[in-house]
């Protein structure tokens, strides 16, 4: 029963997002991202490894829709395959950040004052360490890898999430209904799950959707610096980085990966904004009815 309730709520939110112009744009872009990622697992117009030494830096043609790069590989196919790596990174980074953020947030509003003080202090101090520095520290023992991007983003955005969601959680934690639930003998864990988390959830979801966009941006930067996605693994950052070296000669090839990253990040940011409005029960009476 709870399941049908939550799924209907989900479809209402989707409908509310779809109703707005920007919402349509975001949903279409994000859905295409997922579809292209899945398709790229079984099919790309050209094989990723089919390099053609006679056709390097080819102009767009029927065979090579966006032309070829310096090794004669098909630019379009690499971008398609890059989609899945970036999707994978974004999803795992968000899951990691969400888990860490919720954990830290719970610690920060915990009734155990030692735990809450230590976690507030730790988050406040560590928040100013930028993601790229975390990635650098990780890259020393791990080398360039997808995991570096995911863990670095997860830690950085998790800290940020905890700090942003804390006021909401604190408000709920100090509320009368939590007080009365505790007086009836509810455990701290169940109060967190049933009262505090649902109150902080809208903020958390919006923040995570923005974080997904930042993760896509971070991938391109870290990969270019040489401690993100290792060479040979397709990703948008990889496509961008390989075209940089030849910018003087073939400026146009650099256009596509950057454009795709920008559009996807815009879609994720817009999605976050529209989501904020859509999950607000004050402005959307439909949500209260269900």
């Amino acid at each position, binding site marked *: 029963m709870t399941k049908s309730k939550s799924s209907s709520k989900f479809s209402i939110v989707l409908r509310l997002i779809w109703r707005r112009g920007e919402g349509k744009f975001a949903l279409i872009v994000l859905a295409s991202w997922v579809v292209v990622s899945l398709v790229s697992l079984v099919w790309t117009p050209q094989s990723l490894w089919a390099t053609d030494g006679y056709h390097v830096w080819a102009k767009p043609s029927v065979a090579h829709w966006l032309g070829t790069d310096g090794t004669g590989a098909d630019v379009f196919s690499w971008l398609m395959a890059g989609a899945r790596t970036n999707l994978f990174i974004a999803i795992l980074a968000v899951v990691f950040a969400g888990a860490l953020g919720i954990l830290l947030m719970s610690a920060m509003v915990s009734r155990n004052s030692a735990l809450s003080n230590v976690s507030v202090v730790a988050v406040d*101090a560590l*928040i100013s360490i930028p*993601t790229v*520095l975390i990635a650098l520290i990780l890259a020393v023992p791990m080398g360039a890898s997808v995991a570096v991007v995911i863990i670095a983003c997860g830690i950085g955005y998790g800290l940020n999430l905890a700090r942003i969601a804390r006021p909401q959680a604190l408000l709920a934690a100090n509320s009368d209904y939590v007080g009365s639930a505790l007086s009836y003998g509810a455990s701290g864990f169940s109060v967190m799950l049933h009262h505090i988390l649902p109150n902080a959830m809208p903020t958390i979801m919006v923040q995570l959707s923005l974080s997904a966009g930042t993760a896509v941006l971070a991938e391109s*930067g870290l990969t270019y610096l*040489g401690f993100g996605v290792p060479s040979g693994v397709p990703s948008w950052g990889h496509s961008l980085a390989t075209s940089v070296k030849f910018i003087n000669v073939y400026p146009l090839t650099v256009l596509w990966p*950057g454009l795709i990253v920008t559009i996807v990040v815009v879609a994720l940011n817009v999605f976050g904004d529209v989501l904020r409005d859509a999950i607000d029960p004050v402005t959307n009476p439909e949500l209260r009815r269900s």
Partner: protein
Amino acid sequence: MRFVIRRFLLFVVALLAISVVIFAALRILPGDVASVMAGLNAPPERVAQLRSQMGLDRPLVVQYFSWLGGLLQGNFGTSLLTGRSISSTVAMRASVTFPLIVLGLIVALAIGLTLGVVSTLATRPAVRSAFHFIAIVGGAIPALWGGLLLILLFGRGTGLLDVLPSQGFPEAGWGNFGSALASLVLPALTVGIIDGASLMRYTRSALGDVMNSGYMDQAMACGYTRRQAALKVGLRLATPQLVSVVGLMSAGMITGVMVIENLFALPGIGAGLVTDLGNRDLIAVQSELFMLAAFFLFVGFLVDLLHRFLDPRLKHAVQGGVQ
């Protein structure tokens, strides 16, 4: 004052914690630092020699404290590759990076604050959504790509307008002030425009919140027009929040700065760190990472102090809570 001391202690504790993390990250390497630095095909004697030269044969705790002790005395170690002291190398690199960050911040503040205020005060829906569009798209551009576009537009030799240098930094450094500054213009614009777009969003939301508050009604009731109230009272009230944002932003800028330094071939801290990491000059990497972390933690410390200073409500929160 108690707050300042407490916050400073927190800074010190965090600094120690981060030093342990950085130290540990270098020690959990497969093999050890010496064998990594000596390279794959190095003879065992060479590795052993390196190990004793760097004191890596001592217990970990001893190694950590001798490193930390050195840091406290301003001795950051010597690079094994160049033989130069790491602190002088870092100081040279910082003379590129910090001006770049400062210039980038100036651009970001000029763009972000101005457009943020203008878009908050705009009443026509079309104007508001146009600003919204600029903010969202500007903040979504990858730094690397933004830099490339600027090179393609303005870069000397490659650009359509062919006006500004896009590669390197003068040999003479700031001795050649004009060309040093010129070589930082495009990099600073890249970093600044992207962060300016996100600052614009923050300004709009911070100022927007204040604009809908009772403080604005009170200010206007005293005789300010809406615009005057926004500029004279609204901005001041949004300032503590914006200071926090700008502080975190200037720390986060290093991500873009590292990419941009590599792209524009600037010999700064970011590019240097990447080079050292590539060369496996791990002693240098260890100290450089620590210095960067210390800098960011210090920025965080300053921002918290400034925030507190700018908002008297926080100071009186404890006493005021009684009634």
